[in-house]
């Protein structure tokens, strides 16, 4: 197999990491919504934690995307 083809296949496989990111973000928001519906007055105080958790979960998925981009453009 040539290097070019292997690069593209590798980049495609690296994007599977985004599935984990999607699940993680869904989990964070779902637990926030569950907690907020049970205890609405405490929900506003936890909003910064929600944003922080969302960004951290998204970051892990983007690391996978970064590997894909490195394979495509740098290697």
């Amino acid at each position: 197999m040539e290097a070019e083809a292997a690069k593209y296949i590798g980049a495609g496989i690296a994007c599977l990491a985004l599935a984990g990111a999607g699940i993680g973000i869904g989990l964070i928001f779902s637990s926030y919504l569950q907690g907020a519906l049970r205890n609405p007055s405490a929900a506003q105080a936890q909003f910064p934690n929600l944003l922080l958790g969302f960004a951290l979960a998204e970051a892990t998925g983007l690391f996978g995307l970064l590997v894909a981009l490195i394979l495509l453009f740098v290697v």
Partner: protein
Amino acid sequence: MQSLVELSYEFVSNMVRQNVGQEGKKYFPFIFTIFMFVLFLNMLGMMPYSFTVTSHIAVTFALAFLIFLLVTVVGFVKHGIGFLGYFAPKGVPVFMLPLLVIIEVISYFTRPISLSVRLFANMMAGHTMLKVFSGFVISMGIAGGWLPLGVMVAFTGLEILIAFLQAYVFTILTCIYLNDSLHMH
């Protein structure tokens, strides 16, 4: 205009006070600068025909490395060589200690990498997707009707939201790392 500045001052001041505590007040100018810097660099990238500075790993890594150095130096200045005790939390059984110390050190050193790559990948991926969707708008031409325009507007809105969010997350993680250094664990 003044209320905007006061709002943002209040916002960052609350963030610093909640996450770093009373000792964090002397780091407040630095945190405020970081927040405004990242926020405005991200927002500048949203203006048409402009250049997104934070979508280059060189810029974000320099910023994250600076913050990492600051946090480490602050830890050493405040606690002396005892700062190395940060890597061995209390109440750990002795036989687990070597493995735990290695894991803690590795996770401490990946902090600047994760901080910089998060901002860089978000900005670069966002702008790349905007460009790709714009290409689709052009190639679909008149056949798409209002849909390409609607998607572009929604996506640009999402990018603006992400610009704010990433600036906020960058700053709040800096506050958390500073808190870790000032009050060990």
